């Protein structure tokens, strides 16, 4: 019994179970739970991520199934009432979750269909006549440039928000050319060193970031080699000491793009 795991939008065990029951018309008693778990783990390994919550959810469902299965194997009367009650309530819970999920699954199909049909109808992309726009009061009239700077700082420091603009950081705060010369000079001199040593003289985190990007680019261009013997350990930078004309041109282009 192969288990399908939707890799893009990872399916949970509830969805999986529902699939097994409704689409494949399978009697769960014929499902080998050990196979199910093995296939599941294999898939998880393939997508190279194991969310702990997802995994525990999966095992909760699997153990409920195992419990119910093993219970059925026992001759009647051998288990005590308490155990039986517990099993029954687990079964009820699982049933409820399956029902609930099925409802939302079908609702999502309806939403998908609506989204699709609605997308087939494109809304008018209007523009305001430019003559009219010019006759309106200018909304930027009383905005001070410093207001934009303040907004930008707020945005970049706000918690749930993302992104540091690397291009902007490079252009304004780091002399990339100087950094490159210092890096290459140092590497040519000592041939090999740890990244932490390399950025010892860096005055800011930004310079460290730029230096790191230069390392990556240098690695891509084959100018230097990077090694990291230990996970999260020191990054060793090895100077390969040879730059082709093409590589040089590429590097120049990169530097120009950065500055």
């Amino acid at each position, binding site marked *: 019994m192969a288990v399908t795991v939707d890799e893009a939008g990872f399916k949970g065990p509830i969805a999986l179970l529902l699939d*097994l029951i409704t689409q494949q018309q399978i009697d769960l008693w014929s499902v080998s739970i050990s196979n199910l778990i093995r296939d599941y783990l294999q898939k998880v390994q393939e997508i190279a991520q194991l969310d702990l919550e*997802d995994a525990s*959810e999966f095992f909760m469902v699997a153990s409920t199934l195992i419990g119910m299965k093993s219970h059925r194997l026992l001759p009647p009367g051998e288990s005590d009432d308490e155990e039986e009650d517990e099993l029954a309530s687990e079964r009820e819970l699982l049933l409820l979750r399956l029902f609930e999920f099925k409802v939302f699954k079908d609702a*999502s199909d309806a939403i998908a269909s609506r989204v699709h049909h*609605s997308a087939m*109808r*494109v809304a008018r992309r209007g523009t305001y006549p430019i003559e009219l726009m010019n006759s309106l009061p200018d909304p930027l009239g009383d905005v001070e440039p410093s207001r934009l700077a303040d907004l930008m700082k707020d945005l970049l420091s706000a918690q749930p928000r993302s992104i540091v603009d690397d291009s902007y950081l490079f252009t304004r705060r780091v002399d990339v050319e100087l950094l490159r010369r210092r890096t290459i000079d140092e590497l040519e001199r000592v041939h090999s060193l740890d990244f932490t040593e390399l950025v010892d003289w860096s005055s800011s985190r930004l310079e460290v970031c730029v230096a790191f990007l230069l390392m990556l680019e240098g690695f891509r261009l084959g100018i230097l080699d990077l090694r990291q013997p230990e996970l999260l350990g020191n990054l060793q930078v090895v100077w390969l000491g040879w730059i082709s004309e093409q590589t040089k041109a590429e590097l120049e282009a990169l530097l120009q793009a950065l500055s």
Partner: protein
Amino acid sequence: MDLGTDKGGVGSASSGAVLTGLSDPVSESSDGSVDRDGSVDDFEANVSKEEFHGAEGSIASGLTRAIEAILIVSSEPVTSKDVAAVLDLPEVAIIAEIGRIQRFYAGHDRGFRLDRIAGGYQIRTTEDTADVLERFLSERLAPRLSAAALEALAVVAYKQPVSRAMVTAIRGVNSDGVMKLLLSRGYLQVAGRDRGPGQAMMYVTSPLFLERLGLDSLADLEPLSDFVPSAEVLEAIEASLKDEE
């Protein structure tokens, strides 16, 4: 273009005069098509007249032209209330006129319709032109949404306001990623924090969600009860988990 911005209201004599003046050339038209002068009383009469004449051959009034112009320059749905405010006419008059415009384009089967979307009105192309537009815009019109994202969207749509944890609980799988995606695509928005313990961030669908689904309001979504599984499915699920046959 004066559509009776007079504060005295549509029913007043001065405003009536203005409106008559506006549509003056139209009332002379020989084809017997309806002209309208925007006064509330006449709107009723006009509706029936227009219905009698059908959608064809009608010459647009000043009010029609004004509303159409507004819709043509807009990219977002425009509410009848906004139009009424700009034209200084009662909203009911605007709604009636919009109804006529809708019937005009539908009746002539043009390449677009005037739809009611997210509480407003918006010009949208007809569905049969979709593949032409895909070629013209060289982009896929249908958005790519994974089954996971759609499931999460369904949960929010029907249970809003809702926290990520609740979505995860129903789907049985961690939903932080898809929720983030739906947020960045504009389908969802944050509606503040739960007042209960934990103060979880609560999510609701956005106005853009309505636009993307072509809905006027959330009330237009099928009730969730429509999706209750059929007796056979329920039985199948129950039977598959049963102890005995």
